[in-house]
Each structure stands twice: as structure tokens, then as C-alpha cells.
């Protein structure tokens, strides 16, 4: 069950970000989970709770946002919901011309934490990883 490895990676990344920001208690983590990410959300939630134990994320809630998989065939100007099991060859022309538009996400979107700083509007850098 690699959901444990995934959960530990999420916790590790959030811990690092929390340390950098001087945050103390993390109360929630928002995660995008694509339909084709190969992760079972229920198993991930279970593992997440375990992985948070004894960290700054102890007791944090995992909010998993499912992302539907969609694909497109440029020549046909066709776009479709990939579904499960996924249909990745174009339903119109049947050619291997499809592009996946979404569905492989496994991404920490945002976190909510207590950072001990006074009320201020701060600008956080956003890494362009995608």
C-alpha cells in the first residue's frame, strides 16, 4: 500500500514548509487527487492520520479534492471525460492523438496553520512546479 509513502511525503513537505514559515500547529492540508493518480483517497486519509502522529500536523485534517480526468483530441476538436477504466484513445477517430488535460494531479494545494505572527497580509511565493 503506497498510500503510506504518499502520506509520509505529504507530511514531510508540509513539515518543511511549516518550519520555514515558523508555523506551529497545522490544522488542515488541501490535496488535489487526480482520478488517474493511482491513489485510493480513503486509504490515503487513513495513512495520513497515522503519518501526522507526533509531528506539527498532529490531528490535521486532510481535505482531498478529486480531480476528474479529461482528455482532448485536437484534430477532432473533441473533449471527453476519461472515466474509469479510462478511455484514452479518441472516441471519435480512434487515433492515438489524445492529450490528457487533467487527472494525474497529486498536489498539495494549500495548508492552514498557526504561525504565531500578527495579523498581516503576506505575499507567499508560489512555486511553478506544474
Amino acid at each position: 500500500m503506497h498510500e503510506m509513502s504518499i502520506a509520509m511525503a505529504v507530511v514531510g513537505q508540509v513539515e518543511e514548509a511549516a518550519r520555514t514559515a515558523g508555523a506551529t500547529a497545522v490544522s488542515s492540508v488541501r490535496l488535489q487527487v487526480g482520478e488517474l493518480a493511482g491513489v485510493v483517497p480513503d486509504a490515503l486519509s487513513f495513512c495520513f492520520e497515522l503519518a501526522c502522529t507526533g509531528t506539527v500536523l498532529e490531528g490535521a485534517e486532510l481535505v482531498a479534492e478529486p480531480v476528474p480526468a479529461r482528455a482532448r483530441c485536437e484534430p477532432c476538436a473533441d473533449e471527453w471525460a476519461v472515466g474509469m477504466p479510462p478511455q484514452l484513445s479518441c472516441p471519435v477517430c480512434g487515433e492515438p492523438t489524445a492529450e490528457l488535460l487533467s487527472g494525474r494531479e497529486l498536489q498539495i494545494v494549500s495548508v492552514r496553520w498557526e504561525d504565531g505572527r500578527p495579523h498581516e497580509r503576506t505575499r507567499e511565493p508560489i512555486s511553478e512546479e506544474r
Partner: protein
Amino acid sequence: MCRVVDLQQAVLAKNDASAQSLRAELAARGTTVVNLLSSPGSGKTALLERELVLARERGVPVAALTADLATENDALRLARSGVPVKQVLTDGLCHLEAGMLGGHLDGWLPEGTRLLFVENVGNLVCPASYDLGESLRVVLASVTEGEDKPLKYPTAFGLAHLVVVTKTDIAAAVDFDEAAFRANVQQVNPGVEVVLTSARGGVGLGALLDRALAAGEGAAVHTPVMAAPPAHTHTDHTHTHAAVAQTRP
């Protein structure tokens, strides 16, 4: 102050970065990694054993690393081929990660190795998510596993550079419907090549070796639809929080 902060970090970014640097490091040493994924009992070890013997006969410097949850049987079997073989026990971990692989290669991978076959832990779920720095990802299924195997494990088959069918010597006996299997592969991974093999009959061994060598020589490898980066990121989730951290009282 309790606040919501945008992180936007890919969960597998660390593994992907390790895989990327391992691929570059091995390429500089002239080594190409072939990552083999399958369910237990697919005949992956039997095929790999024959593949290693063939490579040795052809004078291709080859090595194999086999990952298992617990036993060492696979390594003993592969070592009969006479090429360098290393067994890695994952202690219950269901997949290899790039950093782990790199650690296992340190001080072991013989100089001048042209092809390194990595026999991943036997399952088609977890290993699919982890790039190991391979140049060729091969997903195997035996004729006994059913034509719908690609639909049951779409992430594994969908990310394959090459699909290999094993045990074709008994295809007729188990009523394997090759056309249905191929159609299911095409549904999840349009355009990917399917190679039919039989370790017992010595069928398809050369084809697999040729594809691996070609990948190492920089020949174009199939790009699965599922692996290609999205043409444009969808906007409904990623940018709604904007760059300003939202503060909450």
C-alpha cells in the same frame, strides 16, 4: 494567527527529481535502466533470466537488480544467467523509489554496464507512481491473467513505454484473446507497442532486448498519453487562491 497558505507542491516532486538526476548520472556512465513491472506470478523472473542469458551471449554488458518484499529466490534464479545480480529486500515496502535505487547501485553497479534491468516489487499498483530513472518502462502480463488486466490496472499499463505478454506458449490452452487484450491496452495507452513473449519457447526475447538497447541509444521511446504533461493546466483549482495568503482571525 491562523492562515491558509498556498503551497502548490507536487507530492512526488522529490522522487521525480531523484529519478531525473539518477537518469542523468547513469547516462553519463553509459547505463540505461529498464524498469519491469508486473503482478506476482506473471513470469517476469523467468523472462528476465532468459533475457540476461541472451544479452550475455550477444556480448551486451548487462546487470539486474531484483526487489522483493522478503525472499531471495529471484536473485538466485537470475544469478544462474552468470551476469551481476543484486537482490534488494524492501522490508514490506510495496515499491522501489528512485533514491532507494540510487543507494543500492552505489558501489555495486559494475563499470561499463550498458543495460540494468530492475525487477520491481511484484504488484501493478504502487510501483506505477514512482519513476526510477528508467529509460524504458515495461509492463508485463501473462496470458493467464485475462484480457481485461490493462483495464483493471490502468495507471500501470497507461504509463508503460512497452507492454509485454508472457507465457504465450500456453495462450491457446487458456483461451487468451490476443485481440481483446490489445484493444484494452490501446484504450488506456494508445499507440504503445505490445510484444508477445515466451520464456519457455524463446519467443520475443530479442525484441525486448532490442527495444532496451534502442532506448539506451537515444531512439524515440513511446510517450504514453497519461505521461504527457497537460497541454494547459486547468484553472478551476490552481489559481483561485491567488498569490496572497488569506488570513483568518
